[in-house]
């Protein structure tokens, strides 16, 4: 209850701070949706390939990390953007 009062007092003092935090959450959450699906596709298909052809596992693993790196970049842009946003 004391914590709630503290939070309410802070919110009354500076409402934009809370809105900034919500905005940061939306930016990073939104940016994480696509890459989440994309990395799932990349790794899932890489596992299928490795299971079907275990002898090519080395090449597939390298290509998989490359695919993850390219896909992940979008989520990281969102992560950095969330820091840049200031109230």
């Amino acid at each position, binding site marked *: 209850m004391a914590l709630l009062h503290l939070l309410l007092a802070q919110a009354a003092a500076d409402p934009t701070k809370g809105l900034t935090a919500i905005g940061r959450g939306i930016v990073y959450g939104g940016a994480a949706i696509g890459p989440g699906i994309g990395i799932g596709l990349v790794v899932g298909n890489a596992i299928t390939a490795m299971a079907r052809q275990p002898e090519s596992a*080395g*090449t597939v693993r*390298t290509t998989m*990390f*490359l695919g993850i*790196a*390219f896909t*992940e*970049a979008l989520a*990281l*842009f969102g*992560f*950095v953007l969330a*820091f*840049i946003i*200031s109230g």
Partner: protein
Amino acid sequence: MNALLLAVDVPPISNVTIWGAGPLGFNKTAAIYVFAALATMLVFVLGTRRKDALVPAGLLQNTAESGVGFVRNQIIMQTMGTDGLQYLPYLTALFFFIFFSSITEIIPFVQFPANARFGMPLVLALVTWVIYNVVGVAKQGPLHYLKNSLIPPGVPKPILILVIPIEFVSTFIVRPFSLMVRLFANMLAGHLILVTFAALSAGLWAAKVTVVIMPFSFGLLVAMTGFEILVAFLQAFIFTILTAVYIDSSMHPSH
């Protein structure tokens, strides 16, 4: 409670560019980079003294030899082939330097990855940018290099109006930028996770009632510390292999 608030209250992004006092300022980040450069040199200067020995022995020689073997077989042969072996010294040094400056994240009492400040990742990405552009111009000539990197093969003529600007932005602007952001944001995110769970553990320990759930937070802190070793290695690997891929795309253009 204070420690918790301190960890959650992240300083604005402008703070990460502050570099000590004045242009020659020296801080923890710079100290870690000096350590990483010295450690990279140490491994390869001291690790290669016994040139006539057939069987490698000792930590430094094993590290140097398996590091070179790793970069050669897993990075260069997978992407560039035998043509790329001339870049082996640079890529090996790059891999070890990034690894040493990131692994300080989990070393006790240092606990800070220098690559969580984007100065050095930016410099390394720009070096990669210069290398693959110079290689492309030198191997293919300026006009062929521009044509090969801007016009993908088999695209119908009318669509080129749309494709050429996109390819230009993606090859010459997004490549170095994403290379920089990937390394910097991964290390910063890992560091923030460790800080959050450490401060949470301390905060839970301080209050009598909440100490019951402290082991969960602490257990996750230990697990994430192990995970960050993997991340430090993986990001060094990915930065190096992407540099190799970009150099390869300049050396062997797709027709």
